[in-house]
């Protein structure tokens, strides 16, 4: 790739940061997609390669994919349109890419990478280390921004050949390694919470504080094993706390 095309890729990646700026139920990320491909449309319009208004109107159609993979789709479509591919071919390519990458991105980033990087920083945050947020930001955004930029660059350079490239790499929405990492880090953080005096349960009679905390954790894991969503567990425990508080307040002098 030339430095010019790398700059173009960086431009698409930068514009992709706004891909959900005006997310709407009707056409979802259409306005963000319009922003990403607008430089390519201007280029073709100034070269006399097409009707700008018609191209722009087409680019305001439905678009929805994982935001980190949006530059890959935009780069691929831009490359194909600049190569003179038929509009229906380009549209088919756009739809197939955006649908397949949406599920992969949700699983890979939202379900795995994001909780994993937050869990990496969580123990440091619980210990009061001021660099903990920076650790989370760095470990997450290096791969995140890399995916945006490389996706745009690969899409621009390969066009429709990106399909074969992606299939050869067998992108998947889940990873057993990441899943185990999440579970182990979550357990470590919970154990930390259970045994730190600032965060854990106090001693309960003859039961020392760390064991009280570990026991509470075990009970909570068993409850969580019922499959309740986190916000339902928070709601149930909060409701119990409110009831307990009400009893205390009624009985208070």
């Amino acid at each position, binding site marked *: 790739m030339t430095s010019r095309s790398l700059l173009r890729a960086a431009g698409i990646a930068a514009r992709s940061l706004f891909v959900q700026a005006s997310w709407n139920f009707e056409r979802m990320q259409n306005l963000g997609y319009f922003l990403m491909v607008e430089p390519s449309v201007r280029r073709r319009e100034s070269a006399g390669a097409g009707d700008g208004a018609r191209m722009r109107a087409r680019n305001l159609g439905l678009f929805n994919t994982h935001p980190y993979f949006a530059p890959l789709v935009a780069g691929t479509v831009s490359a194909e349109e600049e190569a003179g591919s038929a509009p229906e071919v380009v549209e088919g390519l756009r739809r197939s890419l955006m649908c397949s990458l949406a599920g992969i991105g949700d699983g890979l980033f939202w379900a795995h990478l994001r909780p994993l990087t937050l869990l990496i920083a969580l123990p440091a945050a619980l210990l009061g280390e001021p660099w903990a947020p920076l650790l989370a930001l760095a470990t997450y955004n290096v791969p995140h921004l890399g995916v945006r930029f490389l996706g745009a660059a690969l899409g621009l350079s390969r066009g429709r050949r990106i399909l074969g490239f992606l299939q050869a790499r067998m992108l998947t929405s889940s990873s057993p390694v990441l899943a185990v990492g999440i579970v182990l880090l979550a357990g470590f953080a919970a154990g930390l919470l259970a045994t730190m005096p600032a965060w854990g349960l106090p001693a309960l009679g003859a039961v020392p504080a760390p064991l009280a905390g570990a026991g509470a954790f075990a009970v909570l894991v068993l409850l969580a094993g019922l499959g309740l969503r986190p916000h339902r567990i*928070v709601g149930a425990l909060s409701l119990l706390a409110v009831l307990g508080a009400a009893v205390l307040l009624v009985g208070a002098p």
Partner: protein
Amino acid sequence: MGGGALATALLVGVISLDEVAFGQLLLSQPLVGGALVGWWAGDPVGGLAAGAFFQCLCLGEIRAGSSVPPDTTYAGLVGAAAFVSLGSVAQWNTMALLGLLAVGFLPVAGAARLLEIRVCRANALWTRAAERLVAAGRPRCAQAAALGGLVLFFLRGVLPAAVVLGALALWGQAALARLAPAAPVFDLLARLLPPAGLASLAVQRRSVWRPAFLAAGLAAGLFAGGVVR
């Protein structure tokens, strides 16, 4: 409403843009956003602690596809901001305050998600505007219209935070004084919620969650034994 509370609410509004409208750079997660708000308010340690607390509560929520749970990420950010704005309160230790704020976690999360749905419906007007501008041969203005949703998402981030922080600024101290006898209950709640949230996150990985027991036991043993302090 105090100027400090309004400024904090505006900051929360800016940070919350990262959740959907701009970047998704992890800034809106309570662990990072709470630290930012704490630094802004002059209490970086408190902001980080509150952020870590609320982060444990929302790690297990995954918004993917058509699943739209309550916006616990935003609620955690507001919770951290509320903790920082309260400062130190007589008869309430850190954990008791966090526990009390956690009770408001779900209502704020639910309200935030409802507002977000309204914003996403309203954002269709930017598509109409962009289409008109494109047809009129004004593509640069159409690009500006494409960013119009940032304003609505920002307002959606500011409004619940302003309500919560404003209420705390006006009535927070008096309410806390009245609720002081119940502080131990909220202290206990705050000590149970984070492990519960983390356990829920682990159990979602149904085939591999049992190692969490081993990791937790090992960590507990290490710290109880004084290997790590």
